[in-house]
């Protein structure tokens, strides 16, 4: 059962859109004061439940290919971050923290794609990627996720891929900012 369905549990219950409309139209006030509560409730919503799984249709074979290709790319990204962090010595603590956080987010992407058994990335021997390499890889990943999203049949998969594309675009921007400091 695909976990990516769990990210949209509120929408399947028919309540997600109402709340988002409310947030968008009314809730700027929540941003400064109440945002942590909102984020908490969103996180809880994202927790997979048996109901979610039961309601999620098995992916079509085309979607299975979309998922497999996105997952393979996430695995490759995870490998590159692990390589940089393992080499580690030249990183400032701030950059190392950022890379660790981004690595963790790629693991969450992989999880959301519901790929539990994957071959670990073959550690590419040789040159350790630079920040610029990682930035380029994130941009390419965001582009790939955008294309995958277009070919996804399941709307829930499309939503997940759209979120991952946005996440990876933000990684590229954060790495650019970190690199220019």
């Amino acid at each position, binding site marked *: 059962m695909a976990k990516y369905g769990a990210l949209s549990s509120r929408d399947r219950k028919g309540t997600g859109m109402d709340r988002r409309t409310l947030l968008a139209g*009314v809730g700027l006030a929540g941003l400064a004061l109440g945002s942590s509560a909102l984020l908490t409730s969103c996180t809880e919503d994202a927790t997979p439940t048996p109901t979610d799984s039961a309601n999620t249709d098995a992916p079509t074979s085309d979607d299975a290919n979309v998922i497999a290709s996105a997952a393979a790319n996430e695995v490759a990204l995870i490998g590159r971050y692990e390589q940089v962090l393992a080499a580690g010595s030249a990183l400032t603590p701030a950059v190392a923290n950022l890379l660790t*956080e981004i690595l963790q987010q790629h693991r969450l992407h992989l999880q959301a794609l519901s790929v539990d058994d994957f071959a670990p990335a073959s550690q590419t021997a040789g040159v350790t990627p630079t920040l610029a390499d990682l930035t380029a890889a994130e941009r390419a990943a965001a582009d790939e996720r*955008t294309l995958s999203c277009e070919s996804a049949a399941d709307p829930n998969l499309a939503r997940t891929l759209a979120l991952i594309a946005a996440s990876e675009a933000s990684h590229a921007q954060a790495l650019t900012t970190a690199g220019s400091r």
Partner: protein
Amino acid sequence: MSEALIAAIAGEQAAAYAYGLAAPYLSGSDNDLVRGGLVAHQQRVTALREQLASTPQPPAPLGFEAPPVNDESQARQLLAQVELRLCATYADLAAQSTGIARRAAVLTGRECAVRSISWGGAPEAFPGR
């Protein structure tokens, strides 16, 4: 589709309003970022309204509740949050669209994600979720 479009229109209107609130506290090189963001959100409202072929169009909101913005730090925080939330709004729109419209929704969400970081936000695995 139209529900997600209406939500996106409302989110873009709120974002444009937030830029207006924040702008007085930002200066120097931030001015370009403010101008770029404001214009982008205003243009999006127009584009989304065109996409929403049905009538009646949702009315422009009479106002928005917003947190107090009294200094530069609060201004940045507001804009980072507004942009972050739009990422999820556009992911919903992507889910309910197909083809070119879906691609446009994903690309717009990516732009919001980038602006959120520019305003000091931190990357998230599922931005705005």
